């Protein structure tokens, strides 16, 4: 059964739709990310789930009970959720132990029970030895762990995280991604995770909700999202890609610089303009004409840059106007201006809106 259900949730500020027609169902124990560019309404959605603001339309249900609607909301303190804030919101007037124990205290557990659970969770996040410290004496990563412990120790029905890693440096951020996923695997708490960092979302999530301008673009598992983006926005937002405009005529589709058989491409219907996404990694480069299934297109290297982990080439088909971006392994070196063959597998081309 669904743990958390958002039905057509909307938030309107005056005439501006911060969130519109947002529908999502989370099954129990699922980890879902809200991913999208700044200002797309992620925090707004999360805060509506938490009960800090009423939606202007739609409803939110937890365990089959309505907890938010335009006519009223269950206040946050009665939702049995937890939230990790961008600022961590660790209370500076309480020690690590007091911070973590706070939620249990509010739930009126006995002192010994609180101690036991606090110690246990502090062990899990490897912070037991810092129990008596004040937050001002902790590093950013340690504060982050306290925030995690404080949110998890109350065994919330739903855990909400709002860009919890954005204040950490790059290395620590990578480490904490795995930490968050590990804690999720251990406690199986239904989680909504807000981020604008796609790799963060991909590492942690079972499913990702890609948002743009207050609307859902696509909801899918990370690999599906990458391989089968449904819209131009998703294809461009998740990873890098080439957008190829095709013109469908008869049984072939003409692109800038090459032509593909309509039967080999997905989603060909009607006639006229079609848009395809083709990842730079999915294209091969060769010095001689390749044999095999793939389309072979004669082209010229127009520019290149070396990024350590791969080469990034701009390759212009001889009969085309715009170059196509191609990534190759660091060992495949081509000089600017040299003739090459592009290997394009039509099956790797994804039709997008």
């Amino acid at each position: 059964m669904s743990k958390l259900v958002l039905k057509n949730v909307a938030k309107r500020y005056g005439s501006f739709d911060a969130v519109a027609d947002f529908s999502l169902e989370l099954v129990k124990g699922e980890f879902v990310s809200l991913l999208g560019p700044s200002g797309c309404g992620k925090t707004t959605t999360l805060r509506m789930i938490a009960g800090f603001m009423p939606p202007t339309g739609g409803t939110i249900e937890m365990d089959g009970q309505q907890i938010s609607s335009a006519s009223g909301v269950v206040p946050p303190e009665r939702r049995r959720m937890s939230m990790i804030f961008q600022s961590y919101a660790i209370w500076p007037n309480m020690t690590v132990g007091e911070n973590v124990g706070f939620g249990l205290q509010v739930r009126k557990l006995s002192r010994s029970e609180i101690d036991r659970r606090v110690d246990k969770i502090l062990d899990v996040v490897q912070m037991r030895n810092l129990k008596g410290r004040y937050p001002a004496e902790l590093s950013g990563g340690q504060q982050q762990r306290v925030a995690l412990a404080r949110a998890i120790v109350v065994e919330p029905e739903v855990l909400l995280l709002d860009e919890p890693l954005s204040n950490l440096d790059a290395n620590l951020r990578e480490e904490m991604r795995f930490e968050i996923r590990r804690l999720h695997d251990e406690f199986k708490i239904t989680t909504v995770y807000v981020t604008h960092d796609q790799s963060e979302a991909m590492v942690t999530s079972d499913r990702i909700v890609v948002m743009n301008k207050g609307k859902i673009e696509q909801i899918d598992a990370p690999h599906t999202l990458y391989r089968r983006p449904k819209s131009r926005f998703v294809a461009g937002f998740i990873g890098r890609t080439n957008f190829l405009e095709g013109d469908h005529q008869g049984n072939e589709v003409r692109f800038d610089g090459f032509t593909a058989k309509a039967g080999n491409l997905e989603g060909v219907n009607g006639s006229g303009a079609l848009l395809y996404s083709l990842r730079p990694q999915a294209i091969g480069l060769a010095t001689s004409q390749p044999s095999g299934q793939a389309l072979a297109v004669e082209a010229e290297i127009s520019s290149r840059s070396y990024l350590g982990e791969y080469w990034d080439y701009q390759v212009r088909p001889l009969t085309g106007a715009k170059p196509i971006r191609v990534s190759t392994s660091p060992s495949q070196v081509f000089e600017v201006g040299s003739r090459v063959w592009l290997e394009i597998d039509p099956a790797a081309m994804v039709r997008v809106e």
Partner: protein
Amino acid sequence: MTATASTLDAAPARPGRAGYFDSTWLLWIAIIAVLLFLVVSPFIYLVITSFQAERTGEFTFANYATAYGRARYVDALLNSLKLGAVSALLAGVFAVPLAWAVARTDMPGRGLTRMLVLATFITPPYTGAVAWILLAGPNAGWLNRFYMLATGAEAGPFNIYSFTGLAVVIALYSFPYIFIFTTAALELVSSEMEDAANILGAGPWRTMWRVTLPLALPAILGGLIICFLEAIALFGSPAMIAIPARFNVVTTQLFQFFGNPVRVEVAAAYAMPLLGVTVLLVLVQRLITRRKGFVALTGKGGDRRPILLGRWRWVVFGYAMFVAALSVFLPYIFLIQSAFAKAWGRGFSLDNVSLQNFRFVLFEHATAAQSVLNSFLYAGASATVAVFLTLGVAYIVARKLVPFGGVLGFLCVAPFVIPGVVLAIGFYAAYAPPPLALYGTALILILAFTTRFLPVGYVNASAAIRSLNPEMEEAVRVLGGSRLTALRRVVAPLLKRNLLGAWLLIFIPATRELSAAIFLYGPNTKVASVMIFDMSEEGNFERLAALALILQVLTLPLLWVGQKALGRDFMLRRNAT
């Protein structure tokens, strides 16, 4: 589904009926009622009363005709404006070099200078005026006596009972406002901006004139305006000096309208220009100091190295000590002399020393000791009310708990544009008549003080609340704590210091408030400032000095507490004024 539904046990959510009554509404209504009572109603009564006939209460313009019908009354208005301008400019002459020297140079004794400015700041203007009567009274004043002694002349050159005398005395005790504004601004000018001028070939003086001071100019102008407003709203010093000098200013004239019989209607009409000028200038001041583009004072942009003055540092130091001599050293030396003297005119000889003034003030006088107690009680009560009220409003406004919360914030800062004298007339008009009949009660004084200092409270409270990330409270709430729990466990502990600071910033000036108290006190509710004023009218300077010193000494522990909790300069910061 029903199995897991019990997880929301605290309050089972009823589908479609998730609305809860929000008790913050009650609080909001209570606060708005209090603010209406404190701010809006006196103001409205002030305006209405100015259009009412004395006994009948009918609508009339007669009060305005009376108030502006005589050349004398109009002259008093003009005198006030002139006085404001002259003393503000003088205050600028005192304050700006000191501020620059303290904030930006290597002048010796910068800490000492700050301390002396603070000492000036906590000296009530009327105490300063009394000290200057001792110093520069015609003939008997000490400065004149020293002059005659030194030159053998028949008479001394100084006469405090003059327009100039009054302007100087007011400037001496209001220059700290400009000092505070200017240092705050100068401390934000980064050395890099000055370096940029230096590299282009400008010497230190040129840099100061062309770069540093222009950057601080809005702040200086803002401070000048505050001094101007302070001067025209002041009651004590003009009453002690202008009246013997046979000229009137607005506030002394208002006081006379309040004499026997009380003509509150005429007073209300006569107070309007004072109110108007204040409102106008406060708006101007806000415009000047808020103009972002001009104020390149971001606070970032590198460190601030002091400008090396070389030999000039002693000249600048000399000037600082000269100002301090005028505002602190000389006045206190002769106040102390007077307080311990049998007769102040007999000078420093040992047989003139006695404790009888203190004994008299503390134990023998019928109401003097009581008046000090009253001052502290009323100030304590108003500071407490003001702090909690403004904290509540600031919280409601910052967290947007109610629609139109901004209106509440506006009401809290509005009294800033109401001079104490005018406020008192409004309170008199609103609450002296039945049914409340509060005139002369402790309550009316406490309420008036509360209103006067609401802006200080509000500015501090909202700064404090804004410094708190709302996520701190939201974290409490998602974990199951109510808003009250958040206030009690997180907000209050984190704001303790700020609240104490705000309390002191209200309490200290409230213990010396005179402009409003003089219009509202009754026989049993005399406060120390009124007592001092009465003694000055009796010419009882020895006892007066003793009482004034007692008031100052009692303030010291409070200052100490404030400095412990909030840092040395807590009274000299921008949001203190």
